[in-house]
């Protein structure tokens, strides 16, 4: 049963909370002096990079810190009652009943061996003493509320039978079953595709209003917080550095970290030559190596020795409902533009180095992996791909999971051979040449930068050795000394100290590992570098630095960069041309300006609308796609996008369902769609920047 139904104070009050983890060697403070309060019906965002302690706060609220974690100071009050003083039974009564939580990995949050219905029904049976039938009715109602088709069937399904987006909706339904007063969302959409994410965000906002639930929204994505929250609290290295109303913090920031964060993310106003991203120098401090005074001090442009590192900095009032943990915020000129850059403009794209025409890749897979039985199915991973990439050009390949971008990369690298069509590198066709048949120079010409920094380096080989090995394979130099010299130069190139040559990968941070990965890719003076989401797994502040580095090396070496990404913001910032892919098809291809302006392919339009942008001046058109991305195993007939397209009824007949659309050409801007010229002309821009 709910407690204090008449309580009208703040739902959650966290006051000077400190949480530490205890290891064999030392105490590691994870959260220090953290205060925030959540009013009824309010959504508060908690933003910060990984390791800043934002998830620890959430677990602290749930009183579920594990064996090693302890609250070492401060209080957490829920509806006026201190959670730390409650007994286990009282806590159980509150968990799932009055405070519910939604996590990052929907698949992992659901019990794989229990039917969805049973997992949902558990909540009312446990907390409201409901009987089976009442609980079932409630579950059915909630599943309908989270807009899942065919609720009765879903209740009878196991989690693995649903898609990622559906699973997350179930997790949300489970959290809302008991109509909690507080909902904690811990990166609820990070594991999902952008267009699916947009649907979930929409749903959460809507349900928040409908049920009157207060929300604590934890995310590393400033844009997402802008879309969902009323107030925001920015965290850095275990401390809240700034909090306030969302517009206040986004437009009148009063902490250098917040400012630096905004300058390092690719907003629509950023531009790679005129207004480049400004990376935050240095690294995130390890929890046991925090500097004295201000934690951000060593990386701050406004640092003043003797003041900033003298004593712990308290949170101070910086306007109505706005606080900052900076001793100097009154003195700083917050409107001063970032230092103008002296970056040379990128050289104009040269001659085409890579030509792909009519490329196809089909796989045959056994229908059932366990039994090996059943008939083999054909997966069409890539369909008729045509494009060109020129010297020192950045071509972005954009698409969500299953769009075939990785297969395309594999064919370029020679890890797969094409089913049909040609890939011309220089003046040789390489589509049928697996990597074993390519000579060292051909191999070193096309290299790759990988996505996951924690996976890209062999954990049991030194950094130097890994780069040297690449040099050996590429037949560089005549002696070990030659190669060592070159390896050290490469470390210089990616701005890593030479001592790193003898370090093991585990001693490096994510951004540093990614730099080593870049050095390795450029070891043989690659002509084409395929970068597969090279920064998506990195923290926001490190992303800018790695992106910058990649572009700088590209400029110097006149490399062709194929930049694979799902993030349109970063793509807009750095690429010259963009290729949008969906379910193995190229649906749109054009220069960055062309792709970001109408006419759009309907999918591009939705994708642009789905990407959250952390800028209060941006006005976006709301386009939320229905449903999930179809499986590549079982693509829809006709146009691949027809199952989710909002323009479909404009096309006469059943053309979309039956025929793959032709590639339409608008002065070099190509769109694969059946829509008429008039419909294209009627499209409005999705992103508009309001006049200041």
């Amino acid at each position, binding site marked *: 049963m709910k407690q204090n139904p008449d309580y009208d104070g703040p739902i959650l009050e966290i006051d000077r909370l400190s949480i530490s983890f205890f290891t064999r060697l030392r105490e590691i403070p994870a959260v220090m002096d953290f205060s925030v309060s959540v009013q009824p019906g309010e959504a508060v965002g908690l933003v910060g990079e990984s390791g800043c302690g934002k998830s620890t706060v959430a677990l602290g609220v749930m009183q579920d810190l594990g064996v090693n974690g302890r609250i070492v*100071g401060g209080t957490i009050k829920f509806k006026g009652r201190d959670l730390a003083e409650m007994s286990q039974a009282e806590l159980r009564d509150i968990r799932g009943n009055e405070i519910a939580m939604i996590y990052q990995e929907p698949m992992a949050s659901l019990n794989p061996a229990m039917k969805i219905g049973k997992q949902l029904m558990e909540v009312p049976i446990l907390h409201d003493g409901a009987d089976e039938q009442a609980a079932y009715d409630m579950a059915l109602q909630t599943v309908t509320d989270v807009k899942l088709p065919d609720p009765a069937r879903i209740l009878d399904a196991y989690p693995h039978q649903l898609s990622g987006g559906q699973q997350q909706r179930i997790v949300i339904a489970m959290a809302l079953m008991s109509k909690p007063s507080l909902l904690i969302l811990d990166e609820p959409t990070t594991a999902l595709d952008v267009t699916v994410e947009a649907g979930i965000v929409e749903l959460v906002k809507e349900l928040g209003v409908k049920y009157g639930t207060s929300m604590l929204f934890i995310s590393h994505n400033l844009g997402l917080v802008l879309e969902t929250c009323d107030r925001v609290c920015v965290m850095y290295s275990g401390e809240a550095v700034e909090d306030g109303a969302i517009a206040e913090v986004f437009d009148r920031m009063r902490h250098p970290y917040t400012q630096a964060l905004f300058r390092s993310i690719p907003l629509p106003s950023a531009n790679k030559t005129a207004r480049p991203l400004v990376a935050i120098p240095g690294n995130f401090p390890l929890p046991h190596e925090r500097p004295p005074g201000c934690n951000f001090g060593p990386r701050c442009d406004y640092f003043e020795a003797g003041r900033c590192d003298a004593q712990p900095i308290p949170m101070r009032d910086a306007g109505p409902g706005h606080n900052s943990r900076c001793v100097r915020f009154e003195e700083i000129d917050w409107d001063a533009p970032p230092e103008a850059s002296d970056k040379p403009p990128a050289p104009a794209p040269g001659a085409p180095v890579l030509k792909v025409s009519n490329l196809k890749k089909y796989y045959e897979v056994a229908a059932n992996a366990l039994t090996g039985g059943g008939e083999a199915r054909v997966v069409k991973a890539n369909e008729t791909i045509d494009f060109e990439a020129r010297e020192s050009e950045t071509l972005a390949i954009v698409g969500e999971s299953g769009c075939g971008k990785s297969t395309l990369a594999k064919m370029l690298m020679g890890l797969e051979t094409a089913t049909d069509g040609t890939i011309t590198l220089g003046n040789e066709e390489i589509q049928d040449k697996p990597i074993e048949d390519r000579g060292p120079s051909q191999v070193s010409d096309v290299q790759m930068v990988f996505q996951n920094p924690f996976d890209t380096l062999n954990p049991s080989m030194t950094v130097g050795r890994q780069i040297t090995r690449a040099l050996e394979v590429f037949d560089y130099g005549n002696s070990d000394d030659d190669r060592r010299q070159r390896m050290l130069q490469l470390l210089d190139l990616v701005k890593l100290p030479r001592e790193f040559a003898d370090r093991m990968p585990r001693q490096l941070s994510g951004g540093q590992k990614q730099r080593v*990965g870049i050095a390795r890719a450029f070891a043989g003076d690659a002509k084409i570098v395929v970068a597969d989401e090279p920064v998506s797994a990195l923290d926001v502040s490190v992303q800018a630095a790695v992106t910058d580095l990649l572009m700088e090396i590209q400029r110097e070496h006149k490399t062709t960069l194929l930049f694979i990404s799902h993030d349109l913001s970063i793509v807009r910032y750095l690429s010259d041309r963009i290729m949008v892919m969906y379910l193995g098809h190229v649906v749109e291809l054009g220069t960055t300006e062309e792709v970001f302006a109408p006419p759009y392919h309907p999918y591009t339009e939705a994708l642009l609308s789905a990407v959250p942008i952390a800028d209060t001046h941006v006005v976006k058109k709301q386009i939320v796609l229905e449903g999930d991305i179809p499986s590549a195993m079982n693509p829809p007939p006709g146009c691949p996008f027809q199952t989710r397209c909002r323009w479909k009824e404009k096309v006469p007949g059943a053309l979309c369902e039956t025929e793959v659309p032709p590639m339409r050409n608008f002065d070099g801007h190509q769109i694969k769609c059946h829509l008429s010229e008039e419909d294209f002309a009627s499209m409005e821009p999705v992103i508009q920047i309001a006049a200041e």
Partner: protein
Amino acid sequence: MEPLTWTGELGDILDPLLGIATLALAVTTVFAILASFVTPTPRITVNPDGTAAMAEGLPGLVGRAQQNALYALIGTLVAYIVGGIALGWQGAGIIGGMMRAFTPVWLSLVALFAASIWFKRSLGLYGKLFDSTIGMIGFGLVMFWVFTAIFGGVFDMIYTSDPLNQVSGMKNEPPGSPLTEDGGYPFYLLGGDTLARDVFARMVAGSTIVIVIAPFATLFAFMVGITLGLPAGYYGGKLDTVLSFLANLILAFPVILLFYLLVTPEIVQTGLPAYMAMVLFLAPLVFMGVLIWSRYRTQPNRAWLLLALVLTPMALVYLSVINADDTPIDFWPLDFFNIPGGILVVFVSVVFVNSPTVFRIVRGLTLDIKTRDYVAAAQTRGETPWYIMLWEILPNARGPLIVDFCLRIGYTTILLGTLGFFGLGLPPESPDWGSTINEGRKLLSIYPHPAIAPALALLSLVLGLNLLADGLREESLRD
């Protein structure tokens, strides 16, 4: 001479102490378990100066008591050892006598542990082992038998009498009986067996056999398992299907049936083990060859030099091993040594039984690791599959493999014991533990001591290996 009692005069003091310490440890352990049910989480209090301390409370108190009881128990055991070394025959009894016989082992153990604990922070995973009580106990037990095997087998320092020597009148004599003949060691510390031989000496001699064969056989099983498991996991497809089928085939064989079929004099007569050995012992050569070539293929000169340096001595040893008189393979003139057919067939069959399991583990690990980006990176720079398997995948699979290696030596020890228990392979008078148990079991209800001694020895070695593996696993999962 008087027969010895178990603990002698020393026991009058130490036996009650030992009893009290053991009882205390048992009681506190039970209490600790019960206490962990009553109060699930120990509370941490924060001192004003910012440091935190575990609140005492009931669980803390019981925990401390348990720890003290453990120290008391260990202290009493050390007292037995020291007392045994220091006191005379009647003073320290049988236990003391054995402790004295093991003196070089104790000294080596103390030296090893002192050095290891001193330098543990710079010794990687091996050093971390000394943070885990379980791991230390396991390592101690294993090294005890390793040192015993070395000092007994190589330096002849531990034997109290010749393990094969029969002394009339000592048949089935109980432990601590004085020798009827003069000269040499005055007692059969653990009594005499049915053939009037010294049980203690035979137990020590048995350790040498196990410590020599078990790790080597396991090592070969790993070489075979790795050489087949890597490509099965990496390539998949038909190769994987065929190899996995073969592995499952061998695993479906009841081990004892296999032993009864393979380890017989008739099989040795046919020369089958010699052919199997020829294939099996080739594995390390192939392994090293591929290892070197895949690494240095871009520098052929260096590769050939290294290959010559490594493979020539290995090939000589190989040829010498597989060549033996009176077997089908007898062509090589430079035959330095012969391995008796019985031992060879035991070795081959133990490797044969173990390698499918290793194969399955390696295959599973390979399937997991090959999806990592660094493997893709190696592929995109055009590395050969064997380079990727041996230099990119294998080193990163080492953690689970090391743990399994320890467990598997234990299992091999058990298998060797099984062979001895059924009187297979090893010569009848062999002092290995399995054979000794087999001889002793016939009169077990009347004279248990000849079988109990080797049984406990085998138990402690395998237990040590299992505890060591457990400690290694725990420590490698930390941080």
